[in-house]
């Protein structure tokens, strides 16, 4: 075989490989699922879902129809398995798209019925009884009952499951004694009186006992239910998951009328597009209908495109610099307050987030009922005041080099650590570095790979850092004990290591006060105390952004999340996709 012949012979073979590769990936005919290659469990369950769906009458009306496509950077980690997942996107899909929670929050963040049509808390706040709807069925046709709720509770509180948010139920009676199934549609929980006992039931989606009841708790995490073949009971039925590429869901025609009835969209697709510029391009070229969390510098581009709308809404996260009060130079609260006062947080917010956000002073978000607007001006940008505080704390520029020293001549030096690849945190660290230099504090910045950073700050014996730029996402039920209580100073998240009995007492009290009216003054006092202690320099509560194609109507997003109104999204017939 000569050279050219060899190449000539190889080429068709290579083309063949490519063609077969392409053909091999050709999908099943419209409406059918690809079952090939799925685990046995899925092969059994999915045909049942299809058979159930086929027997249902699709709703009709001008709003019904069309496909909406949402694009975001990340996979829905752990998929629809509510018992193991800790991912925001996945949790949103569990609670609003594929599964159901017992209750939901309304716009004012007050509980409203969902899977539970009503509930009552006994006068002594030790018994919580839910009455479930009797018209909710799993997508394979089985009814959703109180047994599913009890199953979900028992698995979530079983340590072997390793449910990440088990702390939800720390004041519920654990195990079988904690839950009673009174009848198929009534379930009762036993608990100690505490603040916001309903809160977990808005966050945790109920899971199907008839499908997962036999799975040992420790194996739930690896079960194919989560990412291969979830069977929910919510407004959308799982259709297909292409790993790292997309999730698609179709309408559940069986969704109860009393809860708004079946969703308008025929189909909803979630696409994973890891690169922000590509996401924006796909939104501008109408391949995506919604893009979540575009960066603030992309916002202007979205706002000026005629066919797009820019949404900005509050979220539960805040960015902060956590101080390590174990370090001698940061042990004094006056120094920590001075660092905050010397930083122009408003300016940082405008520079880093283009103004999309609100300056923070404590970890209680502005939409929380206990938020204290009285502390908003407690630590204004005030370099003079900062200098005075530092001098008062004994830090004076004794050597004339522009950096303050203590009586022993040790300079006031701080290292700010952040994770590599996070431009926002890097910007915050660098702006702070420049501004603190003005009041005589020498700041160095240091970037660490994420896992290495987490290990360094969360290992109680180590904590080799001065200040760390980080963000937290709080729950609606704010509980800062893990972060700020001195009992937890030697636990992974007691970064600040501030030991303040006053703060501890407030943190403990807030968690056991059932009545909000009674608790409100304590919430205010707590936030004032945080300002005083300054375990963190709180920077801002960023707003979340979303770009939405105007053809998709009814899109509302707020603190509850991006998918909260998905059942009401609709697309006028003339602007639906090609087919």
């Amino acid at each position, binding site marked *: 075989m000569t050279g050219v012949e060899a190449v000539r012979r190889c080429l068709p073979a290579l083309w063949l490989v490519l063609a077969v590769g*392409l053909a091999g990936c050709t999908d099943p005919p419209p409406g059918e699922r690809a079952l090939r290659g799925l685990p046995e469990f899925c092969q059994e369950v999915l045909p049942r879902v299809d058979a159930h769906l086929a027997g249902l009458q699709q709703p009709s009306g001008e709003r019904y129809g069309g496909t909406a496509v949402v694009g975001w950077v990340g996979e829905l980690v752990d998929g629809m398995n509510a018992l193991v997942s800790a991912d925001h996107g996945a949790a949103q899909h569990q609670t609003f798209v594929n599964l159901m929670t017992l209750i939901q929050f309304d716009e004012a963040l007050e509980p409203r019925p969902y899977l539970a049509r009503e509930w009552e808390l006994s006068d002594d706040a030790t018994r919580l009884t839910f009455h479930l709807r009797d018209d909710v069925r799993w997508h394979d046709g089985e009814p959703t009952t109180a047994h599913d709720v009890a199953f979900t509770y028992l698995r979530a509180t079983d340590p072997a499951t390793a449910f990440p948010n088990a702390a939800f139920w720390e004041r519920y009676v654990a195990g079988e004694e904690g839950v009673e199934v009174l009848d198929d549609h009534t379930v009762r929980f036993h608990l100690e009186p505490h603040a916001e006992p309903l809160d977990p039931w808005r966050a945790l989606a109920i899971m199907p006992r008839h499908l997962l009841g036999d799975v040992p708790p420790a194996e739930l995490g690896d079960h194919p239910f989560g990412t291969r073949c979830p069977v929910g009971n919510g407004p959308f039925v799982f259709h297909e998951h292409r790993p790292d590429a997309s999730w698609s869901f179709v309408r559940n025609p069986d969704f109860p009328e009393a809860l708004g009835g079946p969703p308008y969209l025929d189909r909803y697709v979630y696409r994973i597009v890891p690169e922000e510029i590509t996401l924006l391009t796909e939104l501008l070229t109408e391949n995506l209908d919604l893009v979540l969390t575009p960066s603030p510098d992309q916002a202007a581009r979205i706002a000026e495109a005629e066919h797009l709308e820019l949404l900005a809404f509050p979220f539960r996260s805040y960015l902060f610099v956590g101080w390590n009060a174990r370090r001698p130079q940061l042990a004094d609260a006056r120094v920590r307050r001075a660092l905050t006062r010397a930083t122009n947080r408003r300016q940082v917010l405008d520079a880093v987030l283009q103004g999309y956000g609100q300056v923070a002073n404590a970890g209680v978000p502005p939409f929380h009922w206990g938020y204290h607007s009285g502390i908003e001006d407690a630590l204004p940008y005030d370099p003079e005041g900062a200098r005075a505080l530092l001098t008062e704390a004994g830090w004076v520029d004794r050597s004339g080099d522009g950096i303050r020293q203590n009586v022993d001549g040790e300079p006031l030096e701080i290292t700010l650590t952040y994770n590599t690849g996070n431009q926002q945190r890097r910007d915050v660290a660098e702006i702070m570095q420049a501004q603190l230099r003005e009041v005589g504090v020498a700041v160095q910045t240091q970037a660490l*790979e994420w896992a290495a950073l987490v*290990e360094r700050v969360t290992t109680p014996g180590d904590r080799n850092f001065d200040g760390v730029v980080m963000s937290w996402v709080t729950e609606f039920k704010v509980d800062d004990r893990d972060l700020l209580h001195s009992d937890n100073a030697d636990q992974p998240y007691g970064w600040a290591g501030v030991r303040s009995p006053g703060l501890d007492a407030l943190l403990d009290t807030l968690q056991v006060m059932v009545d909000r009216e009674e608790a409100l003054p304590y919430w205010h006092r707590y936030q004032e105390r945080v300002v005083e202690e300054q375990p963190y320099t709180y920077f801002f509560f960023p707003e979340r952004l979303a770009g939405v194609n105007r053809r998709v109507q009814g899109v509302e997003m707020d603190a509850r999340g991006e998918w909260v109104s998905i059942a009401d999204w609709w697309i006028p017939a003339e602007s639906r996709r090609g087919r």
Partner: protein
Amino acid sequence: MVGYIVRRLLAAIPLVLGVATIVFFVVNLAPGDPASIYSAPGVSPQAVEQMRQNMGLDRPIHERYVRWMGAMLQGDFGISFSRNQPVRDVIAQILPNTLILSASALLLAFGAGILIGVVQAVRQNTFTDGALSVGTLFFYSMPSFWLALMLILIFSLYARNVWGWPLWLPASGMVSVDHNAMGPWEQVLDRLRHLVLPSASLALVLAAGVARYMRGSMLEVIRQDYIRTARAKGLPERTVILKHAVRNALIPVVTLLGLYLPVLFSGTVVIETVFAWPGMGKLMVDSIFQRDYPVVMAGAFVFAVMVVVGNLVADLLYAAVDPRIRYE
């Protein structure tokens, strides 16, 4: 020849196992572990410890190594921590996507590169040669992620929104959202349309390199006596170039194939991210950040095998192109 192939494959076994071992220890000794992803305020350390136990991370590293190696030799790569499914399934779903992308990029790179190199050599020192030289050097020196973004800008954004071209190319994904509703041929076309930009971004940079090599090699060959002889005996120029010159000029270029394979695999990391192409490169990067040990280790293993096999294929092609080379 068969004996040679068997010997090469046998020699590759310790190499691949060595790579797997090094990757195992590098990954396992890096700071942070997969359970720490779940660690957050409100999550009890006990829950994280339980998760670590469920993942088998509570055992000493040598025990984990022996267990992992033993399972791997039986074809069991374990269960992915972040995806909760057998690693074998994860890779089986993802690997074909990368193979499609790299195979098409490789074809495009060598096809275009060889063609450009030949044209340049035949038209040496003309305007065409100069223009193509500038063009290839331009692409050769360009980072592929930037090229990818420019291609998206031109062929997706501007082509559709500004210039209104009838044929614009999608900027991301392997298929359209309407893919399942299409007929079989439409589905193939849809896949090809999605393949164009990512494989072009990968291929253009490589093609530029191939073209430079091909031009040099061609210039050397067409000065040889046997080319003069071919011309002297009255063969048409076309036959002289295609049959006599290109065949011999290809020999050094074929060796590039072996060199380019690893480059191609690492190049896919960036390209897959930019074009949202669900492939091995992206899988590996995500898994490294999530400390998904089983996937990282299995991925490194698969890459090592692919590079070994790729190099073997290049060596065999070398023999096929150059009759003087015989493997015993």
